[in-house]
């Protein structure tokens, strides 16, 4: 009998070591509220789009925004679509970015670029009337940023455009027809600049020089490269969290967690002595396993998630308390040590199982694993529920298997 338990003990050690290893080598993914960043909910304006084409339009909005975010350089952004009622939405999370406002501007712009000819001959720009030419951002091959080398605008940032073969042809035709006249560049129906065409441009290269600084020029280039949004979007919810607030939250939660754990450990040991100590060891193993699961799955840890974790520690202890109390009872009823221990495990398990199934069910409803639109879709709530679910599942393992093995191993030696 003893030998079999030693195999289990070895298994527990291996699992603990593996969990510790994962914790050492794998990074923990932190949510926006811990590392700072922006959370945006964008609503698309689908009024101009046929109902049957909306899902596709929403997807292409997602793709374009995804490309913009990638080009802007955000590590691990989250972009997901959501359809709620009649509204098609996009949820964008940008962790760790510093200039949130700039990023928001970058994401939200439709970025429809088009070239327009002047219909009037007057020189003043405000009086000019333009007509579309059919040359748009779609004809663009790529956009880049450079700095004007000479002239009055020396040192100013400009956006370089390179057209596709088709676009180059159109552009050549346009410049030929408009020598000496302005050719206007519009972005989202706003006049950016209207340079005078000096000579026909045949190689399909052009430059936009407006009132750009390095940032705004590269932002425009990113938008042009990533393509225009097929429909206008509007931000209906936004959450910006500064990195300092995030760091403070981590510190506070860590402190709270450690102090809470120490209190619980003291409580358990003073109440149950050696079994209490075993429960504390079980709790440490529990902590290691849960955290390593977060890293492996991976679970993005958020502030409510930390609360879920800390709460689940309390619930993990419950399995132990159930067993210990039952054990004491069986001993009081005069049963021999070994029998009392086994009875306690068996009987406590019934209660533990039934009780935990409801917690598992509620957390599954909150996690909404099938992404049902009529259930909760808030990332914060889901994060909390996921940590609670993982906590309960892990605590079933540590509360039963780990504590049981350790108790059989270490308690029986003393009492037998």
């Amino acid at each position: 009998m003893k030998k079999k338990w030693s195999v289990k003990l070895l298994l527990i050690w291996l699992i603990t070591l593996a969990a510790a290893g994962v914790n050492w080598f794998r990074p923990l993914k932190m949510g926006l509220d811990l590392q700072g960043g922006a959370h945006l909910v964008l609503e698309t304006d689908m009024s101009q789009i046929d109902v049957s084409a909306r899902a596709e339009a929403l997807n292409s909005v997602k793709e374009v925004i995804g490309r913009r975010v990638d080009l802007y350089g955000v590590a691990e952004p989250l972009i997901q679509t959501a359809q709620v009622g009649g509204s098609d939405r996009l949820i964008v999370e940008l962790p760790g970015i510093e200039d949130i406002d700039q990023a928001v501007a970058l994401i939200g712009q439709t970025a429809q670029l088009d070239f327009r000819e002047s219909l009037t001959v007057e020189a003043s720009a405000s009086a000019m009337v333009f007509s579309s030419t059919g040359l748009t951002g779609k004809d663009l091959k790529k956009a880049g940023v450079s700095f004007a080398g000479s002239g009055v605008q020396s040192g100013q940032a400009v956006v370089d455009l390179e057209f596709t073969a088709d676009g180059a042809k159109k552009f050549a035709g346009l410049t030929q027809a408009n020598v000496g006249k302005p050719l206007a560049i519009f972005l989202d129906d706003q006049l950016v600049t209207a340079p005078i065409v000096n000579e026909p441009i045949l190689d399909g290269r052009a430059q936009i020089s407006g009132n750009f600084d390095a940032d705004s020029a590269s932002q425009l280039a990113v938008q042009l490269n990533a393509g225009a949004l097929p429909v206008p979007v509007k931000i209906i919810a936004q959450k910006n969290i500064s990195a300092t607030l995030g760091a403070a939250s981590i510190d506070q939660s860590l402190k709270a967690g450690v102090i809470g754990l120490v209190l619980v450990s003291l409580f358990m040991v003073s109440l149950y002595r050696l079994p209490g100590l075993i429960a504390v060891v079980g709790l440490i193993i529990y902590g290691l396993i849960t955290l390593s699961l977060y890293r492996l799955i991976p679970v993005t840890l958020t502030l409510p998630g930390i609360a879920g974790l800390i709460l689940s520690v309390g619930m993990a202890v419950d399995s132990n308390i159930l067993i210990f109390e039952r054990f004491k009872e069986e001993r009081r009823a005069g049963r021999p040590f070994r029998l009392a221990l086994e009875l306690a495990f068996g009987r406590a398990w019934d209660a533990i199982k039934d009780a935990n199934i409801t917690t598992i069910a509620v957390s599954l409803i909150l996690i909404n694993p099938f992404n049902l639109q009529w259930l909760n879709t808030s990332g914060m709530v889901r994060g909390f529920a996921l940590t609670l679910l993982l906590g309960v599942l892990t605590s079933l393992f540590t509360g039963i298997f780990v504590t049981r093995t350790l108790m059989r191993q270490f308690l029986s030696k003393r009492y037998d």
Partner: protein
Amino acid sequence: MINWFKYRVFYFGLSLVLIAGGSYSLLVNGLKLGLDFTGGSLLELKVNAPIGELQTVAEAAIPLASLQQSNDSFILRSRAIDSAQKMQLTETLKIKFGEVSEIRFETIGPLLGQELIQKTLIGLALAVLFILVYLAYRFRDKTFGICAVLAMLHDSLIILGAFSLLGAWLGVEIDALFVTAVLTILSFSVHDTIVLYDRIREDRRLYPQETMVNIANRAISETMTRSVNNSLTIIFMLLSLFVFGGETTRWFVLALLIGTVSGTYSSPFVAVPLLVLIKRNR
């Protein structure tokens, strides 16, 4: 053995007084709904400015609803504003008062609040349905499920009432996290009740001749230590979070704390007495 059931009038009385007080406040004051429900904007800034002057500048720039000082920063609330309006405000503040650092900015359209309420109710209905069905199945008796759900209702009324009062006294607002806390407490409450039910089921098998009252008394006595000890560990963790865990989750944690206490209390003193009353009268 302690005759717990004998004091049922006291338990029901205490619960009724607490629920009546809370419900009265709910009817009169309602709940103070936060941004997540009402929509609007919240901007937290660090700026070296007197609060009066800050108010004047902010009122000129955005539709300011309230301005509040918290530790070394200011919290501005207003109807929903966009990024551009916010930037305009911070630019103006920079010119007037020097350095401005933005700690957080949240803006939420009013429609989202409606959705949150709707989705919560659907989630709640699903959870209750599951609990009723599962308990009816596990205990071969639908009364168990009904009483557990009544105890759950008791706990949610206590939390809602407490937050209605906190809203009226301290201006505490409820948000999406509060909704989560309530749902969690519901599952905790049932968790706790089931442990007790489980004991009743076992004792019924062991002592088939005993009356329901005696069995319930025995089960309550047997699980009381476990129940108190278990809740204490959760309360230790939550208290630690409440004291050291920072501003953002403070009220969330308090909701969990109130719920844990209420959920522990409601198992032996609401769910089981109700169960016994219903069973005895049949």
